[in-house]
C-alpha cells in the first residue's frame, strides 16, 4: 500500500503513514467510479487507509475533472461522478421505426385532403365515427396537416388543411392532383354500385359547397 519506507516513522497515532495525496486521489477516484450510489465522505474514509484526508482528495479530484466529459458532483452530502450536462445528448440513441399509419388516421387524412379546409365535426360527419384526439394530434405532429382558418360559424371551429410536407410526401403538386372518385373507380378502388352524383371531387358537381371550399382550401394552403 505504501512503498515509501521513510513514511513509516511518521505520525504516532497510526501504525502506517497515510499514502501520498496523489495516491489518495486515485483511491477516491476509483471508489467514486465503481460505486453504484453517491458516496459520503464518511463512507469513503471508511474504505480508505487510515489517516487519509478524503476532503482534500475530493477537492483535487473535483478540480481534475473540472471541464471534462465527466464531472465530480456533490449530491446532498455525498459525491458522485456524472456526465457533464452539456453532453447529455450523447446518452441518447435514436432508433427510427417506420410504421404504417392506422386506418383511422389514413381516413381522416384522406378526408382532410379531399375536403380541406374541414372541421373536426365535418370529418366525423363524413367518416360516421368520432375522430379521436390522438389521430388528429398524430397527423399534426407528422406535419401532414395543420390548422387552417377558423370557420366563421358559431363556436368558430378550427379547420384542418394539408401541408406542403404532405404534398411532398405523396408527390403531389397540389391537393387538387389527388385522384378523383372517377379515377378511383376506374382503378377498381370503388364499386360501381351507386351513383356518385354529389361527390365533391375533382370538378364534378360545381354547385357543391364542399367543392368550393376545397378550392378555397387550395389557395389557403399556399397563402403563407
Amino acid at each position, binding site marked *: 500500500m505504501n512503498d515509501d519506507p521513510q513514511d513509516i516513522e511518521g505520525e504516532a497515532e497510526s501504525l502506517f503513514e497515510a499514502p501520498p495525496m496523489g495516491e489518495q486521489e486515485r483511491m477516491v477516484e476509483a471508489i467514486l467510479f465503481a460505486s*453504484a450510489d453517491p458516496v459520503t465522505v464518511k463512507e469513503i474514509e471508511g474504505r480508505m487507509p487510515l489517516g487519509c484526508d478524503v476532503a482534500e482528495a475530493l477537492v483535487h479530484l473535483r478540480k481534475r475533472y473540472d471541464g471534462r466529459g465527466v464531472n465530480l458532483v456533490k449530491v446532498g452530502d455525498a459525491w458522485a461522478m456524472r456526465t457533464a450536462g452539456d453532453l447529455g445528448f450523447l446518452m441518447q440513441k435514436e432508433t*427510427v421505426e417506420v410504421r404504417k399509419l392506422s*386506418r383511422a388516421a389514413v381516413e381522416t*387524412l384522406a378526408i382532410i385532403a379531399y375536403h380541406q379546409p374541414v372541421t373536426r365535426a365535418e370529418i366525423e360527419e363524413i367518416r360516421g365515427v368520432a375522430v379521436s384526439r390522438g389521430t388528429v394530434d398524430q397527423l399534426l405532429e407528422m406535419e401532414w396537416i395543420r390548422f387552417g382558418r377558423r370557420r*366563421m*360559424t358559431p363556436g368558430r371551429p378550427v379547420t384542418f388543411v394539408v401541408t406542403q410536407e404532405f404534398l411532398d410526401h405523396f408527390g403531389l403538386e397540389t391537393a387538387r392532383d389527388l385522384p378523383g372518385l372517377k379515377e378511383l373507380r376506374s382503378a377498381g*378502388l*370503388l364499386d360501381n354500385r351507386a351513383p356518385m352524383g354529389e361527390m365533391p371531387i375533382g370538378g364534378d358537381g360545381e354547385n357543391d359547397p364542399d367543392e368550393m371550399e376545397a378550392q378555397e382550401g387550395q389557395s389557403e394552403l399556399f397563402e403563407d
Partner: protein
Amino acid sequence: MSADLTSEDPKFDTDAVAERLAAEALIIDVDGFEGPLDLLLTLSRTQKVDLRKISVLQLAEQYLAFIEKAKALRLELAADYLVMAAWLAFLKSRLLLPPDPAEEGPSGEELAAHLAFQLERLAAMRDAAAKLMARDQKGRDFFVRGLPEDVARVRKITYTATLMDLMQGYARIKTKDEFRPFVMDREAVMTLEQALERMRSLIGYAGEWTDLTSYLPEGWELDPKKRRSATAANFAASLELAKAGKISIRQGEIFAPIQIKKRDDG
C-alpha cells in the same frame, strides 16, 4: 494385458516405502483423476525431471503397475484406463524390442515422443489456466462503472402511408357513405354551417345588393322542403356574416326581399 508384465516389474519390490505409499494414495484417489492422461501426468511427476526428458518406458511401467494394483484392490476402473494400459503395454514392447522393418506405422520412439508431448502440453495448459485465473479479474480486482448511465433509447416512430393507402381510405369512406341511409334522410336539410360555408365563398361576388333568395343552391328552390330549409339556413348565415362584419344586410319593408352586399372593409 498379461500378468508377467507386472512380475517383470522390479519397482514395487525394491522401491522405498514412501513411493509405495504415494502409489497407494494414488490408487485411493483414482476417482479424482480426470482420465488416464491425468493419471500419467501425475505419475510422471514422481520422475522429478523435465517432462521433455521423461522416460516414457518407465512411465508405462508405472502406469501398468498402478493398474495391476488397482485390480488387486478390486477397484472399479473405467474402460479407458484399461485401454490405455493395453496401449502402454504395446508401446512398451515396441520400445524394448528391436524395430521390425516390416512393421508399418510410427516407431516406438515416435509414439513415446508423442505421449511425452501430450503430457507436456497438458501440463502447460494447466499452468496457463492457473496463470489466467491468477490475473486481475473483473469484479474482484478491477471494477466497472458502478453507476452506468443507460443510453436512453429514443425510439422515434415514423408513420407512413402511401398515396394508394390514402385513396383506398377515401374510397372506403365514400363507398360506406352510399349505404348510410341517414344521409338520404338529411338530403332536404341544409344546416347553418353548410349555408355559412357556401355564403362565405359566394359573398366575394356580392359587390352589389343582391336578394338573399338568389343564394339558394341550384335546385333547392324547386322542392318546398329543401327551399324552406335552405332559406332559413341562408338567413341565419347572413345574420352571422353581418355580425362578423362581412356583409351589410337590408330589407326595404316588412316581407320585402332581404338583400345583402359585401362590406368592402369586411
